[in-house]
């Protein structure tokens, strides 16, 4: 059963190499991350979704803000944060906890994650869970690829051509 959220605080990591990164935490951990977009966009979305007060709070968010800044500047390769898993369905928790473990610079297919959580035929469901991930970047949905392992071919130069030939 999903846990009820009572209060959400938002903060922002500014001036990262990919622009501003907005984040939101509840009393039980990280709830959402939004890369780019406008100030207030994340707050409005979360207030409507969870029907709670969403307020800016530097102190409640500064630890995660500094980790995101360090990560995007190349100073750290993983996150050490508490995630509010309880807001997710049981299947989404299982899927995204496995995605959370994919190391920096590596990729996994949906099928590999499905197998890892003991449901080898649930690759599509893993894809759907990933597509509704509210915590991109920290839960690295960008490291999941299609069945053909598309991103692995990337090496630049001739790698692009190889990638196209194999996967497009």
């Amino acid at each position, binding site marked *: 059963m999903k846990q009820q959220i009572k209060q959400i605080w938002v903060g922002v990591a500014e001036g990262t*190499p990919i622009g501003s990164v907005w984040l939101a935490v509840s009393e039980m951990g990280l709830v959402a991350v939004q890369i*780019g977009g406008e100030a207030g966009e994340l707050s409005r979305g979360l207030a409507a979704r969870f029907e709670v007060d969403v307020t800016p709070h530097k102190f409640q968010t500064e630890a995660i803000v500094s980790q995101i800044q360090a990560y995007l500047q190349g100073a750290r390769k993983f996150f050490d944060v508490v995630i509010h898993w309880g807001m997710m369905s049981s299947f989404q928790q299982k899927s995204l906890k496995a995605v959370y473990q994919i190391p920096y610079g590596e990729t996994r297919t949906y099928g590999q994650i499905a197998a890892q959580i003991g449901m080898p035929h649930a690759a599509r469901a893993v894809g759907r869970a990933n597509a509704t991930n509210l915590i991109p970047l920290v839960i690295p949905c960008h490291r999941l690829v299609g069945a053909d392992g598309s991103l692995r071919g990337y090496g630049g130069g001739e790698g692009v051509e190889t990638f196209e030939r194999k996967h497009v």
Partner: protein
Amino acid sequence: MTDSVVQLAAGEAPDAEIAVLVARAKQDPSEFALLYDRYIQPVYRYLYSRVANAQDAQDLAAQTFLSTLEALPRYRHKGYFSAWLFAIARSKAMDFFRQHKRETGLDVVEESTDDPDMLSQVIRSQDMQHLASLVQNLEESERELIRLRYVAGLSFAEMAALLGKKEGAVKKALYRLLARLESQMAIQNGERSEMEAQND
């Protein structure tokens, strides 16, 4: 539609300049901001033209740049950085469609206009509707040529690197396609004028 009016947002910088930016970003990831600033708009426009939704395009653009940033240490600058970047953007779009099972024709980010001439705006809008319906009926590979050239603003050399084809072949394919669209537009406009004349 003439090629001379294309704004080469992504392809305008000399490749040597991009190579320097890439080398700097590989050395120090915080320098990746320079590549991000240069390419975020063409990547966003390209993704928007595929998914036709601002939020989805923004999310996919973010994923594209995150994957690019993490894969950068393994990138070897032998071809065009933009070709590599757009290959990643394309794979993100394809993954998106695997999940959502839909693809749009060619939606373009709307830009405001200060043109005070309402009549020319209406005519242009009708022309754009005709053009959009013609583009909608193209093969996916043909639509992709138009997206990469006119939405993403890639040069022919960058498109060739991305598609794994010769530059001349890409150019020829696009010009043939444009000529076909132009003649279809002319036929539609002729039919429209005839109908208007009959109604007068």
